[in-house]
């Protein structure tokens, strides 16, 4: 067997290749010009008028021309920025949505790990939800009954089994969901960004389970995560996605290096804030913001690493003169809880903005030791007397954990976003 016969997949070894998944020219497009959902009256008007064929310009390709073969027993990571097409790829493979182009062959039963809450009903108890969740991913009731004790033990929520799931914490719910999926006898397991929840011990347990599953049963796993450390340690191979295309297909650690180095980056984007609705008019406001990571040499890079530095460049404009203004930046986690914050007055920096004038304020936040995930910025412009402008959650960015992060363990529960440096002494 020659390397050429294996195509671009970069696999090696003498074992005969048996496919688990085969994708040929798979693409998925959405019509962005017309709304997808119309009322009956609008639809009738369209039928009477002309047939609705969205022009190529109105099509958004969430996924484009993906061709690859994934072999039995491989653990493949999917890496890419938000909107790169990772989740769409998983949806197309599971059959949740139909591809617009191309074909997929699936050799075996697919199980996908559901997002927290998707397969759960809040009013049902933990026990009932195990059966419901199991049924959604295609398990038989007898199969669930048989493995019920194992599932419950793995989840560690025995004590709450007869409590409605609406009273569970999200951590407990996700543990139960993972426990069900991990015990599914699927040939191909799809895992989408679930390790973001749960404490470290449970995450370790999940990663261990996934390795064990693969070694013992030869199952195939497709794994989406922003936690590059997990991808590098768990996966044998990874695909790097950008704007719906697979731009690299190689060894997992190689892909993580490429991604971290910003190969997948787009040009750093400035967000226009002038059109964001405000509650009131004021003398001055934010007009634009740009967020980027900065490397050790101080150059702007597109990925933001946990423990690295972030540069926030704010542009302000004033209608009337403002004196002694202060700018504050809060970093908020996915649930809108503040994780870190800075304010210029903490460094005793106050500044004036002339009428019809503008200012550019550059803030660098260093050693931002946040857990992997999506964060948003809360921006505040104020004087001693009043708040002039507030913009929340318009700017979002991803924080990734590098494989060689300066810390190995990441605490979870309670799920604090910020991890300070610390010492510990036990006596």
């Amino acid at each position, binding site marked *: *067997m020659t390397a*050429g*016969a*294996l*195509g*671009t997949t970069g696999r090696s070894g003498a074992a*005969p*290749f*048996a*496919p688990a998944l*085969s994708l*040929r020219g*798979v*693409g998925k497009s959405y019509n962005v010009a017309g709304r*997808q*959902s*119309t*009322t*009956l009256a609008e*639809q009738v008007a369209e039928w009477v008028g002309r047939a609705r064929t969205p022009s190529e310009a109105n099509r958004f390709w969430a996924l484009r021309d993906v*061709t690859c*073969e994934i072999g039995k027993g491989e653990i493949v990571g999917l890496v890419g920025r938000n909107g790169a097409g990772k989740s769409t790829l998983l*949806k*197309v*493979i*599971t*059959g*949740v*949505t*139909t*591809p*617009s*182009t*191309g*074909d*997929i*062959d*699936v*050799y*075996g*039963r*697919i199980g*996908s790990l*559901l*997002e927290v*809450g*998707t*397969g759960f*009903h809040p*009013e*049902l108890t933990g026990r*009932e939800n195990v*059966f*419901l969740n199991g*049924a*959604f*991913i*295609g398990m*038989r*009731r007898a199969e669930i009954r048989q493995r019920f004790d194992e599932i419950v033990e793995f989840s560690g929520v025995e004590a709450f089994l007869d409590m409605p799931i609406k009273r569970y914490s999200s951590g407990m719910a996700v543990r139960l969901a993972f426990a069900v999926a991990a015990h599914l006898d699927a040939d191909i397991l799809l895992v989408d960004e679930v390790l973001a929840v749960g404490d470290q011990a449970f995450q370790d347990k999940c990663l261990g389970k996934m390795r064990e599953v693969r070694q013992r049963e030869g199952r195939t796993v497709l794994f989406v995560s922003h936690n590059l450390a997990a991808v590098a340690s768990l996966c044998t191979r990874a695909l790097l996605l950008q704007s719906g295309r697979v731009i690299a297909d190689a060894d997992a650690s190689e892909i993580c290096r490429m991604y971290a180095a910003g190969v997948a980056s787009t040009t750093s984007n400035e967000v226009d804030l002038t059109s964001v609705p405000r509650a009131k008019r004021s003398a001055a406001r934010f007009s634009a913001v740009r967020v980027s990571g900065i490397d050790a040499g101080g150059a702007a890079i597109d990925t933001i690493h946990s423990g690295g530095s972030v540069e926030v460049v704010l542009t302000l404009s004033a209608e009337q003169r403002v004196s002694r203004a202060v700018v504050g930046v809060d970093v908020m986690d996915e649930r809108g809880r503040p994780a870190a914050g800075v304010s210029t007055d903490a460094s005793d920096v106050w500044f004036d903005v002339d009428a019809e004038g503008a200012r550019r304020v550059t803030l660098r936040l260093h050693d931002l030791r946040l857990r992997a995930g999506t964060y948003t910025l809360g921006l505040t412009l104020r004087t001693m007397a009043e708040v002039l402008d507030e913009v929340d959650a318009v700017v979002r960015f991803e924080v990734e954990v590098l494989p060689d992060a300066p810390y190995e363990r990441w605490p979870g529960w309670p799920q604090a976003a910020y991890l300070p440096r610390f010492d510990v002494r036990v006596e």
Partner: protein
Amino acid sequence: MTVPLHANGAVPATTPLRQIRSTTRRTPLDLAELWRYRDLWLTLALRDVKLRYRQTALGVAWVVLLPLLASGIFTLVFGLIAKLPSDGSPYFLFVFAGFLGWNAFQNTLQRCGIALIGNTALVTKVYFPRIILPAASVLASLLDFAVGVVMLLLVLLVRGELPSVASLALVPLFMLLVQLLGLGLGFVSAALTVRFRDVQYVLPYLIQLLLYASPVAYGVSAVPQAVRRLYLLNPIAPLLDGLRTALLGRGDVHWLAIGTSALVSVTMFAVGVLFFLYQDRQYADVI
């Protein structure tokens, strides 16, 4: 790229368990897959049953109370005030028996209608044969019906008017036809509601209208002979009339009309399934 992968002959080309093609327009009716997912149907149906009266003070008693209340109101309005004939039975029992069949039809149809849009998260995130969602509404309807039938028979027993076994044996057959009709219409409305939310506003009115065009508050015998043929073209009418006749054990079964209704019900069911499958590919994108 794919050809050389298997070309060395060492690996026998296995057949894929599932083939996803962008070119097929309609999701094929895969009975084997539906059979594999039969436990999901059961689990979903049980979920609906369990959830209905959870966190209510009266609990399961509502299954009994709701048809009693509806029958009470109808007895007051149509029995006592409008004095509609009830073919020899006490009006309350007459209308109660009518409501049993009607509710089984209406519950299935209404729950089907919201089966997809009420489970948006599932439809956009998880794969399973979608048709299971509306189909799962049948069980709750049938359970309510069964409870109602037991109550009715107890009352008839006390009154010494228990219908014959031969008469009762027709009940499951008529109920099957009622459910086929309800599901057929339900599949269509479930699929349409995904695109046109208008359906969920219009449907309750149509159902209300249909209630008065059906033999619930009155019997078919009360319909003037001149328009009775036309009246019996409403496919649910002969079925509800047949159900009540079988349950109360009095009156005649209009077999010709029921035969026509059976044909319509089966056809409607098939059309509903096909329509649902034709729309299947867009649910996750449009919902």
